[in-house]
């Protein structure tokens, strides 16, 4: 179909034009930071909707990967490049790959019928709305507290919840730029030492559990 083929590059050009126009509009009134934020978060929301609505679990997992990548883009905008890279390695690079694999091995002929209808629609809705409400309320109270903080300072938060960053050692020094790895490491191992240790212990317990649960065979494990 030649007509259909001709439409595709035209559509691509139109999309590029719309993107440029969007940049121009947003950049005109604010800055390039805001423009990138708008593009990335819009794409993130679209991917999230596609992830939930897609019937094919493989595609849903892939859209999940796209959502993760977009969120990492938002982390970058908040000058937290290490968090972004670490999230890509852990989530997009390892966890979703494992998801994909389980799906591909388990459901080679598309999704089964019982996956397509909810078994507890009422209960699920109530739980989901409760979760959404709690999150919105938390965000709102957090936003009131931090209404006037600069976005780029988020790499090294002065407060987490209600606790302030006490130690002077974990604040960035004069020379240090915000978002440098050194500051992050210092904060992790001074102010948040207990959280890091508890998370590490949890992971250790989980890995021991996984080894204990894994089936053993008489000859080798593969």
């Amino acid at each position: 179909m030649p007509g259909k083929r001709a439409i595709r590059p035209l559509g691509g050009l139109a999309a590029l034009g719309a993107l440029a126009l969007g940049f121009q509009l947003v950049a005109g009134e604010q800055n390039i930071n805001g423009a990138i934020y708008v593009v990335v978060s819009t794409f993130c929301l679209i991917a999230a909707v596609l992830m939930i609505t897609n019937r094919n679990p493989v595609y849903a997992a892939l859209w999940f990967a796209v959502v993760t990548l977009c969120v990492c883009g938002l982390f970058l905008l908040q000058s937290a490049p290490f968090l972004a890279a670490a999230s890509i390695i852990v989530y997009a690079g390892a966890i979703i790959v494992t998801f994909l694999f389980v799906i591909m091995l388990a459901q080679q002929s598309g999704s089964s019928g019982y996956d397509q209808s909810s078994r507890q629609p009422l209960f699920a809705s109530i739980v989901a709305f409760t979760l959404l409400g709690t999150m919105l309320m938390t965000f709102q109270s957090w936003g009131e507290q931090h209404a006037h903080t600069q976005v780029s300072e988020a790499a090294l938060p002065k407060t987490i919840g209600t606790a302030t960053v006490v130690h002077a050692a974990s604040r960035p020094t004069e020379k240090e730029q915000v978002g440098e790895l050194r500051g992050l490491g210092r904060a992790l191992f001074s102010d948040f030492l207990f959280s890091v240790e508890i998370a590490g212990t949890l992971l250790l317990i989980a890995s021991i559990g996984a080894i204990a649960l894994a089936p053993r065979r008489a000859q080798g494990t593969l």
Partner: protein
Amino acid sequence: MSSMIPTLMTLAADAVPAAPAAVSVVDLVKAQLPTLITIGAALGAVLGAVSYLIYVERKLAAFMQDRIGPNRVGPWGLLQPIADGAKFILKEDVIPAYVDRALFLLAPCIAALTTMLAFAVVPFGPVDNAPSFHRFVIVPNVDIGIVFIFAIGSLAVYGIILGGWASNNKYSALGSLRASAQVISYEIPLGMSVLGIALLGGTLNLEKILMNQAIGGIGSWYFWTQPLACLIFFVAALAESNRLPFDLVECEQELVGGFHTEYSSMKFALFFLAEYTHVITISFLTVILFFGGWHFPGIAEPGTAGFGPMLLKLGVLMSKVFAVIIVIMLLRWTIPRFRFDQLMGLAWKVLIPLSMANVVAVMTVLQFGWSTWWLTLTSVGLFMAAGFIGVQQAQVALNQGTRRAKSKDHGPVAHAH
């Protein structure tokens, strides 16, 4: 793409110092000109290098197997890559029936995109005396340099998995099954082997790591203090690129072509391009992390400015990278392919414990302020200990095997073949 955002922001801020209110698209493009030129140079160099590396590899393979190699197209077969490229483009582009069309087309794109994107933070020339319009690194001063490369590298497995699954072919699916296990396993020693250098240099920024070695002279090349880390990094990176000692993903004798069995013409060429770009990137990384990058005593020293030294440094860097690539190609025809359990055993039982011990050694030396030359001794000791344990285990397994075989032969159990 996302890595460009900080650069984009800083450059945009530089371009409009007084009035941040009005940033036009023209200003943006003007501010991006050095970046665009650098991207163009890097892309052209990589694509050209890939096509001639294939020629070099074929000639080298022919030499090692006592053949002549490509010699029909042009003098010494030098025009062979161009003929191959034309063939890739002109051949019929087959998309088999019953494949998942979208993912089938997406897979080679992801493979090529991720390997190209990883090259963005690799300094491929002397960054300190580069001309103003060409920086020798696409995204300069990325604080998390190596971590960025690992992050993008961890996405490369999507290309293989999706290609294998979308092909609707059992061989392809098996190939991608092997790929995911292999790539995820070898990411761990790859990342941990670089930790020692990050601790010694106090940075993950590739340009700073290079400058540390250049300023310190040949004695401070990290190869001398971290030889074991160099070996682990090289082996793990080779495994990540799915080349011959580790090419279980596409081994011809078992899986026809592995994940790319169903791919033809330019789509296959994209997978091929991705593999060779990956080889180029890991060669650059090996040279920059362990062998001082463009530094060579007496020839290319830091602090020199001008066009001549720039060319010299570029020449030194390229020679080193080419040497590493040649080693990778020689390895291909020297070491036979691993069995799958050997592959997994190498990652989990050898490389990961060794790299962990190496990190502990580096932290101990730094904590007590000892001379870093103790690390050389530790590395050699660890290597020898691992070799001793390995030989011992092999002997035990051999003894058990012969005993079992003997008891089977003389046992009262009748074999039913």
